[in-house]
């Protein structure tokens, strides 16, 4: 066992001291939030610029009020002369409202020099719709005050009482974290599984492997490699979590709220009329406090422990298979033919996560698929918040059984494969190796 530790140590150290590892580990947490921040910043700045829209309103009923996004200027007709005047101006657009029936508002046209964005078109439509709506309500003899009081903003608290005590949950947040965790496992299975295969091929093609297996059992070498690489993965994730956390806290302190959130609210408010906005402002603070509460209320221990379990379990399961493939071939190019059956379940798991689990994490298919060892590391992470305790236990046991099986199978192929050079390998040959005695 001491020797397995030596191998783990070598695999681990030879990877974490590489420049590329340090680069990826420390740059990714800086790059991702930075990109998010930059996109958010650009999007916000873009919107701040006020667009001037000329309104030629033949119906005389659409009273649009300017705000920080749009500045509306009424212009006189006829349309042709309005158009030509607009053409020679710097303004963004010319809105033509024909003489319309309020209940059938058709034929409105926005003339522009540039193509307007979809959010901009939607924003403008929303504004017009609410004006028409207000006009209709007034025509139904409702006062402006009553009209304002119709607008409400609601935010529902969700409380999970299944665990005995009342726990405030935010299905959006915890589900999101589960999804991210599932995706992270997917990503690492590919990135680090490939490294296992590469490492095995390297040992085989550099011929060092014969010396090594004269000192340890092939199985020990395989396990040492898989465990060494999985430790690298765990270290990397831990560094990422800490760094991303730090960067996010830093960014939050700088902007006030995260840029994405700010952009979201910006877009949402755009779609509501002015009266509602105030109410949202007031409920916004309450919401923020709620989000902070929820972050504190998240079952971090459960998430982290289950993440590490599924990460290691999934990696043992797939890492062993990647090692078996590496042992069977002489070059990475030869490995292609065996990669499909390994990669397929990983990709399928991601699809199931994004389609089936996303739709209903407690549906029968979600539950049963999260028990299948080939899928569970990715799927169960995504529905961790919804799963019953027994489901998690069964899923974990299945995963242990699953990786015990693939490791056994891979070990049998590996012990023969690493000493075979230049032989043409297909599935029949792999089967022969696996069933070979001794």
């Amino acid at each position, binding site marked *: 066992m001491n020797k397995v530790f030596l191998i783990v140590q070598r695999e681990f150290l030879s990877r974490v001291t590489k420049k590329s590892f340090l680069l990826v580990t420390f740059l990714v947490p800086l790059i991702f939030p930075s990109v998010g921040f930059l996109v958010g910043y650009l999007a916000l700045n873009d919107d701040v610029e006020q667009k001037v829209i000329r309104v030629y309103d033949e119906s005389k009923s659409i009273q649009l009020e300017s705000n920080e996004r749009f500045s509306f200027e009424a212009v006189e007709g006829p349309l042709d002369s309005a158009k030509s005047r607009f053409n020679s101006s710097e303004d963004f657009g010319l809105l033509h409202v024909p003489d319309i029936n309020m209940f059938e508002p058709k034929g409105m046209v926005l003339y522009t020099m540039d193509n307007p964005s979809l959010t901009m078109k939607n924003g403008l439509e929303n504004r017009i719709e609410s004006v028409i709506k207000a006009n209709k309500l007034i025509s139904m003899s409702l006062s402006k005050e009553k009209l304002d009081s119709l607008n409400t903003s609601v935010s529902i608290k969700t409380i999970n009482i299944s665990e005995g005590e009342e726990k405030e949950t935010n299905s959006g947040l915890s589900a999101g974290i589960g999804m991210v965790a599932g995706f992270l496992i997917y990503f690492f299975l590919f990135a680090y599984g490939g490294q296992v295969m590469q490492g095995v091929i390297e040992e085989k093609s550099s011929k060092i492997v014969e010396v090594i297996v*004269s000192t340890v059992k092939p199985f020990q070498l395989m396990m040492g490699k898989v465990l060494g690489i999985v430790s690298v993965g765990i270290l990397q994730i831990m560094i990422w979590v800490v760094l991303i956390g730090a960067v996010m806290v830093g960014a939050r302190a700088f902007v006030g709220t995260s840029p994405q959130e700010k952009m979201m609210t910006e877009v949402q408010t755009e779609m509501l009329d002015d009266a509602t906005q105030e109410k949202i402002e007031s409920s916004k603070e309450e919401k923020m406090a709620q989000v902070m509460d929820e972050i504190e209320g998240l079952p971090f221990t459960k998430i982290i422990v289950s993440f590490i379990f599924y990460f290691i379990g999934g990696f043992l399961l797939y890492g062993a298979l990647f090692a078996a493939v590496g042992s069977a071939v002489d070059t990475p190019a030869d490995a292609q033919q065996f990669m499909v059956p390994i990669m397929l379940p990983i990709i399928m798991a991601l699809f199931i996560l994004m389609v089936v689990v996303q739709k209903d994490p407690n549906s029968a298919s979600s539950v049963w698929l999260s028990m299948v060892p080939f899928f569970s590391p990715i799927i169960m992470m995504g529905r961790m918040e919804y799963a019953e305790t027994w489901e998690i236990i069964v899923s974990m046991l299945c995963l242990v059984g699953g990786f015990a099986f693939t490791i056994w199978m891979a070990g049998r192929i590996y012990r023969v494969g690493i000493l075979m050079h230049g032989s043409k390998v297909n599935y029949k040959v792999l089967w022969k190796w696996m069933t070979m005695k001794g």
Partner: protein
Amino acid sequence: MNILEAQNISKSYAGHTALNDVSISIPNQSIFGLLGPNGAGKTTLIRIINQIIEPDQGSITINGEALNQNHIGLIGYLPEERGLYKKMKVGEQLIYLAQLRGLPTKEAKEKSKFWIKKLGLSDWWGKKVEDLSKGMAQKVQFASTVLHEPELIILDEPFSGFDPVNANLIKDEILELRDKGCTIIFSTHRMESVEQLCDHVAMINQSEKILDGKKSEVKAAFKKNVFLLKHKGSFSLEENGVTIESQEILEDDYYETKLKMDGAHAPNELIQKLLSKTEIHGFIEEEPSINDIFIEKVEGGNHE
């Protein structure tokens, strides 16, 4: 005392027999030549001794004890296919390989440094293997094979990959190690390369051992009683049991003659008879080379 005893070893791979009932004994502190053509089963036997693969049948003992994991530290193995971790530094690599053989870290470090110095590679301690020349990498590999001071050193085709300078260096190191008490197994199909070094040999052909024993005894058994005579002045011989196989003129009146004798005569008798006939300048018994013996044995075997 034999350091290694292999008894009735058989191993077959799907439909192909690699070793068939092979038994060998390797005496302590000997240089043992495991000889045979490519594909004879030498590497299979070596892998079995190294516990890389298991025999289907038969048993191996080392120092009288059944082969087990504790013997790994007693064996040093240089496989036919050489290789090191290319991206790993020379020093780290030696320490790692020594640790895998069971040496504690501190000792592994000391021994690695000692051997690197001995082989003149001190400046390369912190360099990656991929930056080394092929000859230097070979030296590093040799160091990794012997630095844990194994009792049994197994060298598979030791001279095939080495350049002549390194080959000589390694020959010297091997002899030194033998004198210190190591036993060395040479496995090769190039028999002339180990002929002078070995004191014991075993020949393997087509998965079976066809011959083994002390080199001098093997050679004696295959002696043909052919003597090479260098002399001045031609002669002819009418003697029972002695025939002239060939006679060549070297220069002027100098000749080289091959004489074959049957077993009834001793060399001294022959010399006595020759003294009166010619001026003897040299008289030596022609010994069969290991290669000749092998060929004879294999051809004899194939005729059966």
